[in-house]
Each structure stands twice: as C-alpha cells, then as structure tokens.
C-alpha cells in the first residue's frame, strides 16, 4: 500500500517544561496506518465498456407540453396528467436508409403513460394507451419489453425508487390482464434518476412521472 504513514503518538517531552512532573503521560501506541482512499486497480473496476447500459428509448424531439403549464406557477402542487400526442416523426428514416426492423417500428408505436404526483394509479387515459400498447405487442409475440417506472424530482428519492417500481408494475399488471404474457414484460424503477425534462416546474414534473416501454429483444 502506497502512501503509508507511520502514525505514532508519543508524549511530547517538553510538556514537562510547563508542569514539572505532573504532566499526564500518554501511553505510546501505534496508530492504524493512514492511507488515502485509492481507486480500484483496473481489474477490479468495471470499465465503461462492460457496463450494461439499458437501451435508451428515442425521445420525441419536441413532445407536447401539457396544458398544465399555465396553472403551474399558480399552483406548483397541481397534479395534472399531461396530454400526449402520438409519438410521430421521432425517428424519421433518412432518405435511402433501409427499412426499419419490425422491432424499431414497434418501439416507435409504444407510448409512455403518465401519473399524478405520488400516485401509481392508472388514469383512464393511461389505460387507453396501455390497450394500444397491448395491441402492438400482441402482434409481435416474440418481442420483450422492459417497463421503466420514473418519478419527478419533488418526492424523496428513496421513496421514489419504490414508487417508480410500483408504477412499472401497475402497467405490467394491466398488460398481463390484457393477455400479454408476463414473461415478456420486465420492470425496473429509475426513481427520479432519469428525468426526460430537466426543468423544475409542473410541466417538467408531469413529463417525468411516467412509464416507458423499451423493447429489449
């Protein structure tokens, strides 16, 4: 170990200068070696190349802001589900590009669903979106999907880890009830760690309280 320090605590003899023979004597003892915290040797450290990064869904370039925007300043706590527009034109193929794989087409069809603050309840609108997602999934029975639950920044991040999981599971349960095989649907929570909108207003929060449906195979 480098940067080893021999830390020894000893009585300073010149303490006696002040107090004669009365100075309290410390027992000489060795101290734990002091070392700077070291980063791991390369073999023990996961290199970025090894990191299994979850596939990122392509985000709509310009997603419609919910109409809650107007009321956001007046009532920051307003719980509003944003309206969604079909995720069109989000990955328009360049001219001459080969036809998209079926999975990529399906990915483009799978829409997010949104939640109220501190809630994993599926709104009527969300249930409608899930029904459409179930239709798409039923047409491609080999495709598997990871449902990613997310939260806005306002809650406790600990609590949001669990809330995101609950949001993902709520969507999974609904899709299973619509006939999608359970083993095609994985869930994961990112809590408040993966916001799509970095803003700090109700419009941003509403975008971030969401489930995403990411094709994994």
């Amino acid at each position: 170990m480098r940067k080893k320090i021999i830390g020894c605590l000893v009585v300073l003899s010149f303490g006696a200068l002040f107090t004669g023979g009365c100075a309290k004597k410390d027992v000489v003892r060795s101290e734990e070696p002091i070392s700077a915290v070291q980063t791991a040797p390369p073999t023990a450290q996961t290199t970025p190349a090894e990191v299994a990064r979850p596939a990122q869904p392509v985000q709509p370039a310009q997603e419609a802001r919910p109409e809650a925007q107007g009321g956001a300043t007046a009532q920051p706590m307003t719980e509003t589900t944003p309206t969604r527009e079909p995720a069109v034109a989000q990955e328009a193929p360049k001219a001459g590009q080969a036809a998209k794989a079926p999975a990529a087409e399906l990915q483009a069809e799978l829409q997010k669903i949104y939640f109220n603050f501190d809630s994993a309840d599926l709104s009527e609108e969300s249930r409608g979106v899930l029904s459409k997602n179930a239709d798409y999934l039923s047409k491609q029975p080999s495709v598997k999907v990871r449902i990613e639950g997310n939260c806005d920044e306002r809650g406790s991040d600990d609590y949001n880890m669990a809330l995101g999981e609950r949001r993902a599971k709520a969507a999974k349960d609904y899709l299973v009830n619509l006939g999608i095989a359970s083993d095609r649907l994985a869930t994961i929570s990112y809590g408040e760690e993966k916001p799509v909108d970095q803003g700090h207003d109700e419009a941003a929060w509403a975008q971030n309280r969401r489930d995403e449906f990411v094709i994994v195979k």
Partner: protein
Amino acid sequence: MRIILLLALLLFAPQLVLAQGYIDVTAPASRKLKIFVAPTSLPGEAAPQVGQELSELFGFDLGLAGPFEISPRDAGMAGADLVLKSAYSVQGGGVTLECRLVDQVLNREVTAKRYTGGARELRRMAHAFSDEVLRAVTGQKGPFTGKIAYVTKASGNKEVFVMDYDGRNPQRVTNNGSINLKPDFAPSGKEIIYTSYKKGNPDLYRRELFTGLEARISSRPGLNAMGAFSPDGSKIALVMTKDGNSEIYLIGRDGKELARLTNSHAIDVSPAWSPDGSRIVFVSDRLGKPQVFIMDADGGNVRRLTANGAYNVTPRWSPKGDRIVYARKEGSGFQIYAINPDGTQDTQLTSAGSNEHPRFSPDGRFVVFSSTRSGSEGVYLMRADGTSQTRISPSNGQDSHPTWSGNM
C-alpha cells in the same frame, strides 16, 4: 467556575477528570472557551504556507465544534483560556507535526501529540489533533478524521466519491458511467455499500475502500437499494422489491437473506438502525402518505413516529440514540427536523433552500445533509442543534447523499 474546577482536577487528579470532570459543553448557558491558535513553529525548510493552512484548519474544526470561540489572530494569547501550539518540521521523506493544548490560566499542558507521516497526510494529522482537543476538553473525541462518502453528478452521471469531512481531498470510488446511489459506511469505515445500475438492475455492491475490491452482494429482481449496515457491521437492512412490493429485509455481509421485516401493501423504504441494533426506523406510506415508523429489529412492534407534516422521509438515528433526524416535505422542497424516539421535541433545523438526506456524524455532534440553498446542490453540515450551517463541498458541484464515517 466550572473551568477552574476542571483545571484543578486536571492538576491534581487526572483519573478523576476522566470519570466526571469534563465541562458540560451541551448546556446552552455554558460560556464558550476562548482558544487561541498560535502561529505554527516552522523551523528549517518548511514552506511558510503550511502555517497558514494549519491555522485555518484548526480554526475551522474547533470553531464548528461548539464549545470554543476562536480568538482573533492579532489578539494573541491575551484573554484566551486555551492556546493551541503546533510545530511542523520536515525530515527525510516525511513530516512531523507536534501539537500541544495549553491551559493559559494555569499555564498547564492539557494534552500533547506528535504525528509523523508523509507530507500529504498533514491535514489528517491536524484533524487528528482537533479530535484530541475535543476529547481532552469534553471527554468525547471529535469526528474530524472521519470521511464523508457522497454522490456527485460532476461528470454528468451519479458517481460515489469520498472526501475529508471539510470537503478537501475528494477521491473517486466508482467510475462506471451508470447511476450509483446511497453509499453507507461499514462501522469500521473501511467498506461502503452502495446501489448501482451498472449491470442494468439496481443491485447492491460492497466495496473495500483501500483495495477497491468489490462484490455484488444482492442482485435480486427489482430494487436492491438503501442498504444500511447494522451497528455491529454484521448485517445490512435493505429495501427489495423481489416479492412484488418494496419491503425491508435483513441480509448478511455476503448478501444472504436473513429475514423479511415488513409485510404490507404499502411502500416501505429507508431503513436505519438504532445505535444498539435493537430497532429500525423506516418510512412507510401504509397510512396514506410517507411517514416515519419505528419497529423492532425483528420486524415486530411497529409504531408511527412522526405525527406532524404530511410527508416525512429519510430518518437516521443519532449515535447516542436520543434523536432521530429526518426530512419533511414543505412546499416543493424539504426541511430537516429532529425528533426524540418517543415522538417528543419535534424540532425544525433548516429553513433556507431545500434540505435533504440528513445523517449524524459518528460522535453525534453534527448532522451532514444535502442542500440547494445556494443554487447547485451541495453537501453541508451543521451542529445537531441546527447552528453553524456550513457548505463543505465545492460551490459549483452537484453533490448529495453524504454519509460520515467513523474514524478510520
């Protein structure tokens, strides 16, 4: 005068002092002890800036501590109760720091230490003497040689770092480009556990800080998060969702499941231990909104702790067991509160900006926390009564989730 009593005891009966004679520095009416940090003696080839650095370090440590008032530099020893003297020297590849605390009234040495080591360990040596000054004056060692682990977004994603308690000497712990969360020190201070998404799922890792050796100890489906070492280091309380809902479990250091502590349809998160290991404080929304509860360490005897506030989270127990800090949602942010384990004396400690993730220092004197009060989120600390709130992480950083180790 208490101080006269202390000094008399020091003079004639040191053993008796250890047993009962320390100044009660927690009593609000106690007069602060004036301490003068004398200029460091720098013989030979020592660099002059060392003296300035040591003076600032001792002033920062002891000024934060509570029982002291730092005498102005130009005031000299006049009027000081205590004088901290230090001598720095360089020999061979190392340095030596000799420190003495002298009672100015009776002209008597209270304590003295000599530290030797590499030049880079100078600040650590000085913090060690600050710890010793607190031990000599109050009977309880200071926490200044402990480290603070925290999460920083400086590189764009959340990585775990460790720094000195005063924000110096930041050292990277993780470097995987993924999301890394919620570090917690083992009681030894030599290991941390944290949750990382680096293999896709939020799994729990245990890592030796000095060697970098690491093991993934819990990778059950779903969350493996908010791990908290038991006070004896033998167990970890952990939130998992493998059984369908977020519940609190106990696992061993190797990750083996030992017990399931909660069983409710609600969200149960954020476990933290009482210092004797007999109880666990946690957060549950089983009554609607998130509130703080206490249960026995076997999961029995659950009762609600927080009665005020609609959204109370992230509790941590004090090392003495007498207080629990937590964060309460107020408006769009959080404030830090402290409460007795029986639910009395619920006290607000912060008010500026949004303040979260409170944890006690290992001696219970301080609470370290995250705050957004100056714009960017940073690591702050304050005395356990809420005074002396001080930012310690860089002003432009994005740092959060601090946790303070015992002395290593």
